[in-house]
């Protein structure tokens, strides 16, 4: 019987400090057993449990894309016991990852549709995965227009800055980057919050346009009315939830919203689904 | 008891009608014999649900922590002492409270009742000092004194130490009580016997934290057992973790515990957890002449320095 709690052993290949406050680091893992990489076949939007011996596990969205081979990437915010220990670890260290877990963004539904990605702060990880996935030459033709709205407090708090700059140069994706404020005179993108920017530049909602929204609660709170005004149906607004998790496979009982587990039935839900469940996230 | 109950209802109804308080905390009739449920009456009509009998052992002070309303509360001797402690520890303001004092004649231990009839109990009827137990095996009458909670048998403060109104004249306090016989028995053990005793005592513990959560002193926002940076105690039912939990919890109650018995009453596996707090109560009495919750005017011993505090343990 396969043990769904057993992590695949991985080696940390690279640690990248992403943000100026040094609280966000991206970890690139390589599987110790090559066959495990095949078993870890994932879709953008799924997550995994990162396992640190002696400390425990944390559920983290997968930041790499299924189209990137040979490694998996996670961007981890330093908050608790496990993430702090992880931030102390270095390339070469051995740990474990368990997954892929949860559902993903609904790629079958999104095929042939316009996709509007709205992200804030460090909740951009699975959105990066999605963008890389959609921009891949094998996949780009499967989607209509792609819009990306991404905001952070300051330029130095933006994740994946090199990639953002590269996407900005392309003509098959519309990238709108913003920061709450900056004193950098050379800042060439937007200044201000996500909701007004989205109100101004996002395409109107229709049957063929879906929005994927990930960010801090305050951003979500003020973005939702904007999307309502733009005419997005609640089943066309897709969100990824977070809750405390342990097992990641719907068994340990803590992460449910109503009858659904965020870990197994989610983390991706449409706003229409979320509206019919208790707000316990 | 019925007179108490009528008086409690009348006072509670009056307080709510006159808007002196926003709510009254008391007990309502439980759904099983010997169990009453802590209850909050918010209207004068609801006060008819308030009851009083010998099964009101839960310490209602537990329900006061950090509340902001004006509250009427039914308090027996130990409850009132914990209210004093709560006020001293700034968990509630004296001005917020209207204390309905109940002279207590001791609470009945449901386990002793069950043992008396060796099993199921359908109904328990009180008549003064006699208690009639009805069960499938027939009726049995016992003397109340024989089935009291252990802490009630040893209680020297049955009358509330603080109150705004009493439901009856004070009852006579128990005298000639040897409150610390059980503690002395353990103090007399040698090291190995003590260890064996504690291990056996705590072996059934399932770490449900009913003792902690029933205790009005245990209001910390995060209990030390729930801390994880650093993690002081393991989460499993390992014997060492169980002991660490119980020992440390008891120490946190030193000089504060009123021996209300809520912990022992709540324990689903019948552990005599009071033995720990009783030892600290004895030490506080012997070293500092201190009993918790008697007065609003004195600070607890672990709160103040006095030059005459015993210090012969310092080498």
């Amino acid at each position: 019987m396969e043990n769904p709690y057993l992590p695949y052993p991985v080696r940390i290949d690279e640690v990248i400090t992403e943000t100026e406050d040094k609280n966000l680091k991206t970890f690139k893992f390589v599987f110790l057993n090559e066959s495990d990489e095949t078993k870890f076949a994932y879709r953008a939007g799924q997550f995994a449990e990162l396992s640190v011996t002696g400390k425990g596990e944390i559920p983290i969205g997968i930041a790499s894309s299924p189209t990137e081979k040979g490694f998996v990437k996670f961007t981890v915010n330093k908050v608790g016991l496990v993430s702090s220990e992880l931030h102390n670890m270095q390339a070469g260290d051995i740990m474990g990852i368990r997954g892929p877990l949860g559902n993903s963004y609904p790629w079958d539904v999104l095929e042939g549709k316009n996709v509007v990605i709205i992200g804030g702060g460090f909740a951009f990880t699975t959105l990066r995965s999605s963008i890389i996935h959609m921009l891949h030459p094998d996949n780009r033709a499967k989607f209509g227009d792609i819009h990306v709205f991404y905001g952070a407090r300051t330029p130095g708090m933006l994740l994946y800055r090199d990639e953002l700059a590269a996407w900005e140069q392309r003509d098959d994706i519309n990238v709108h980057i913003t920061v709450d404020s900056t004193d950098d005179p050379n800042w060439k993108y937007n200044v201000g919050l996500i909701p007004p920017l989205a109100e101004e530049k996002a395409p109107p909602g229709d049957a063929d346009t879906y929005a994927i929204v990930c960010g801090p609660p305050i951003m979500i709170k003020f973005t939702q009315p904007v999307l309502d005004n733009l005419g997005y149906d609640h089943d066309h607004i897709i969100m990824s939830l977070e809750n405390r998790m342990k097992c990641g496979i719907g068994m340990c009982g803590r992460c449910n919203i109503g009858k659904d587990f965020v870990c197994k039935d989610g983390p991706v839900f449409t706003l229409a689904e979320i509206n019919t469940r208790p707000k316990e996230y | 008891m019925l007179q108490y109950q009528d008086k409690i209802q009348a006072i509670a109804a009056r307080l709510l009608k006159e808007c002196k308080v926003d709510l009254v905390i008391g007990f309502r009739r439980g759904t099983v014999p010997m169990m009453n449920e802590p209850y909050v009456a918010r209207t004068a009509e609801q006060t008819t649900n308030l009851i009083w009998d010998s099964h009101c052992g839960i310490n209602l002070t537990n329900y006061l922590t950090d509340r902001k309303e004006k509250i009427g509360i039914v308090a027996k001797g130990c409850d009132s002492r914990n209210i004093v402690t709560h006020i001293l520890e700034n968990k509630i303001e004296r001005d917020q409270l209207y204390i309905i004092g109940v002279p207590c004649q001791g609470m009945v231990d449901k386990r002793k009742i069950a043992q008396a009839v060796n099993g199921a109990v359908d109904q328990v009827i009180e008549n003064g000092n006699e208690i009639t137990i009805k069960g499938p095996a027939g009726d049995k009458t016992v003397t109340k004194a024989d089935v009291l909670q252990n802490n009630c048998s040893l209680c020297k403060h049955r009358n509330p130490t603080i109150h705004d109104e009493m439901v009856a004249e004070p009852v006579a306090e128990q005298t000639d009580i040897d409150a610390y016989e059980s503690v002395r028995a353990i103090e007399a053990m040698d090291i190995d016997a003590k260890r064996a005793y504690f291990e056996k005592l705590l072996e059934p513990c399932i770490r449900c934290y009913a003792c902690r959560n029933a205790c009005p002193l245990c209001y910390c926002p995060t209990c030390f057992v729930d801390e994880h940076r650093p993690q002081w105690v393991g989460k499993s039912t390992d014997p060492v973790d169980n002991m660490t939990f119980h020992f440390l919890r008891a120490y946190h109650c030193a000089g504060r515990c009123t021996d209300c018995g809520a912990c022992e009453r709540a324990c689903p596996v019948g552990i005599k957890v009071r033995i720990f707090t009783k030892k600290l109560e004895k030490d506080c009495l012997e070293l500092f002449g201190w009993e918790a919750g008697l007065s609003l005017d004195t600070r607890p011993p672990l709160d103040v320095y006095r030059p005459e505090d015993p210090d012969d343990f310092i080498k």
Partner: protein
Amino acid sequence: MGIEPGRLQFSWISSAESTKFVDVVNQVTDAIKALGPNRYLVKNQAKVA
């Protein structure tokens, strides 16, 4: 609690009393070495089923 007397000791040492500090530490370590390793309240490995 079942801990041997001697495993816990309190001393009052002023910051000026460096020699007393050394003496006390030596005294306590000697006393504890004489008692041997503690066996009580020591968790070797979690007891698990």
